[in-house]
């Protein structure tokens, strides 16, 4: 057995050598050794460097000796320009990579807030999460007792947190009031109205502008759960929030 294994590795070794030799044969002339790599250079500038929200600035960059150039992670030409309209002060990063190394350059565009009230600067959300996702994760349904429109303590807490975020993000929201299947169609529309209004008042109390909130009652017309039991009814006695665009 040992003999056989050794025999096969010998055969494979010979074949590998033959392949290398035949590969080498294809080259007409031996290449001269490559010149030493050029040093990589990179510059990035913004014009103007300071704008008002809503205006735009032009980023211009030049690189030398780079094979791989990226502006904030997006691959770009070695030299070029691009128009940007940041909504808040932003530092742009140019990364140039080549055989001679990696060079970075940065340029900042300062954004002055608009005269209209804009949200206080907040930690920018990670680029993978949209406002809709952020909204859905944080502004959750609040639930009510049977035929009641009074907020429960957990609902009050959620709405206090929600008010902060809505205020910071400058969001406009719609509050939907819902009821369970019991009771009368028309009265349940009025009940849903009261539930939406209770949530609205809590947001206003938390500092959200009344203009940023719309309400609608769906009564018992749009249940999220359609079985006839208390568990399901509870799911339907709610105020639900949507982000308006």
């Amino acid at each position, binding site marked *: 057995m040992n003999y056989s294994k050794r025999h096969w590795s010998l055969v494979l070794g010979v074949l590998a050598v033959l392949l290398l030799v035949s590969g080498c044969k294809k080259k007409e002339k031996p290449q001269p050794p490559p010149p030493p790599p050029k040093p990589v250079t990179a510059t990035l500038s913004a014009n103007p460097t300071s704008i008002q929200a809503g205006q735009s600035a032009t980023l211009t960059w030049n690189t030398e000796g780079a094979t791989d150039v990226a502006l904030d992670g997006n691959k770009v030409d070695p030299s070029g320009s691009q128009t940007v309209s940041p909504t808040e002060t932003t530092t742009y990063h140019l990364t140039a990579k080549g055989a001679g190394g990696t060079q970075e350059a940065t340029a900042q565009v300062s954004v002055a807030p608009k005269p209209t009230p804009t949200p206080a600067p907040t930690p920018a959300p990670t680029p993978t999460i949209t406002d809709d996702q952020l909204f859905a994760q944080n502004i959750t349904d609040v639930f009510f007792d049977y035929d009641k429109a009074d907020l429960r303590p957990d609902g009050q807490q959620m709405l206090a947190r929600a008010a902060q975020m809505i205020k910071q993000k400058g969001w406009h929201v719609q509050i939907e009031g819902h009821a369970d299947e019991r009771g009368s169609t*028309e009265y349940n529309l009025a009940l849903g*109205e009261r539930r939406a*209004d209770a949530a609205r008042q809590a947001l206003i109390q938390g500092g959200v502008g009344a203009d940023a909130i*719309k309400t609608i009652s769906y009564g018992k*017309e749009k249940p999220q759960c359609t079985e006839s039991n208390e568990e399901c009814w509870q799911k339907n006695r709610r105020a639900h929030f949507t982000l308006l665009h």
Partner: protein
Amino acid sequence: MHRQRKSTFAPALALVLITLAWAAPRAAAQGTVKLEINMGQERPRLAVPDFKTSSGDPQTAPLNSVFNQTLWYDLDNAGIFEMVAKSFYPAQQPGQPPELQGKVWGDPPPNAGVVAFGNLGVNSGKVDVQGWLYDVKNPGSPQILGKQYKEDATPDNARMIAHRFADEIISRLGGGIQGIAESQIYFVSTRSGSKEIWRMDYDGANQKQVTRLGSLALSPRISPDGSRLAYSGLTRESWQIMMYSTELGRTVAFPRNGGDNFSPAWSSDGTKIAFSSSMHSGLSEIFIADASGANPRRLSTGRGDVSPVFNPKTNGQIAWVSGRTGLPQIYVMDADGSNVQKMTDQGYAVSPAWSPNGLLLAFSWVRNYGPGVLGGQDIYLMDIASRQIVQLTHDGGRNDFPSWSPDGRHIVFQSNRSGTEQIWSVLADGTKLQQLTREGRNTQPNWSFK
């Protein structure tokens, strides 16, 4: 049943308004009070032999069958006759007055007081009906009514002729009560996939889709003259009162208000609309506006006010539902918002409907509401002056949205007693219960004014 009868039906039947016969003043609480529709001393025994076919056209037999069924239903459902069972009828079927043997019909076993009979034929695409009403106890001058009808030969027309003849008989023998056989019922149905407004004849025939909103249409209310249908429609942003023209066959422009607007109601003179709106405070309140929708004025300042309805006799009062003290209760106020009175004081009371004579409120009530326990939801009638209450439905399920027939003697309502929500009608004394719809889920019936 061998008593001799006088042949004067009309005076004996000069009745019509529902009167409440109370067993005892405080008996309402014990549920022993009975509501009676006072039909006079006795109800006439009416025989209605099938109409005779008078032509050989192949359409004759099927149209005659539709006609006979419709006529019987209308007369039976009117609740003012004792219908003589067909098994007692003599073998000879009268198609013309000379063929009617009055004595045979007036003596036992039929022992009829009045006989409605006639013939139906189809000639050259027209259906031709002759109908008579004879007082067989008055051989000297037996004819009460003789009518002739001619229309294009269709089942719908055969039904319509039967309705008209039935209304003539009911009006003549009922001391002038308005026939309702040509009235309509509007309602909400899911059968197209979403809630839309539908209509049907009062007996459930001829069901047709009216609106095609595509979102949600609720709370149909037909105008007194039948030309316009107000309803609540869901737009992208809110509920709005919408207006459908039955003459143009489409929804027409109607002013929109802020907030949610729903549950419209017509004054019986057609000049005003009341509705519920959150335009003022974010909470539902009762508003009144011109029939054009212009000049909305706020009448109530409650929290959760809906389902207004005018007193159709005077248009000077509005009944509605408010949750201002907790569970919803029925209230009445003057049409300028003054003089608010709370009419119910327990349970869950919704969906008031004011009787045409202005004396009664029908409403839906979970009377024995308790924590964690829901009793039945039934239709009740309240005598407004005495505030005495009688229970109209007893047969289980959730019963809601009563609406009065034009003659004030029938009530249509929604019930899930059959397993799904369907439209039912009942005589105001609790008899003649009829299921009118079967397909899809059907709710919020509204009976036309005429």
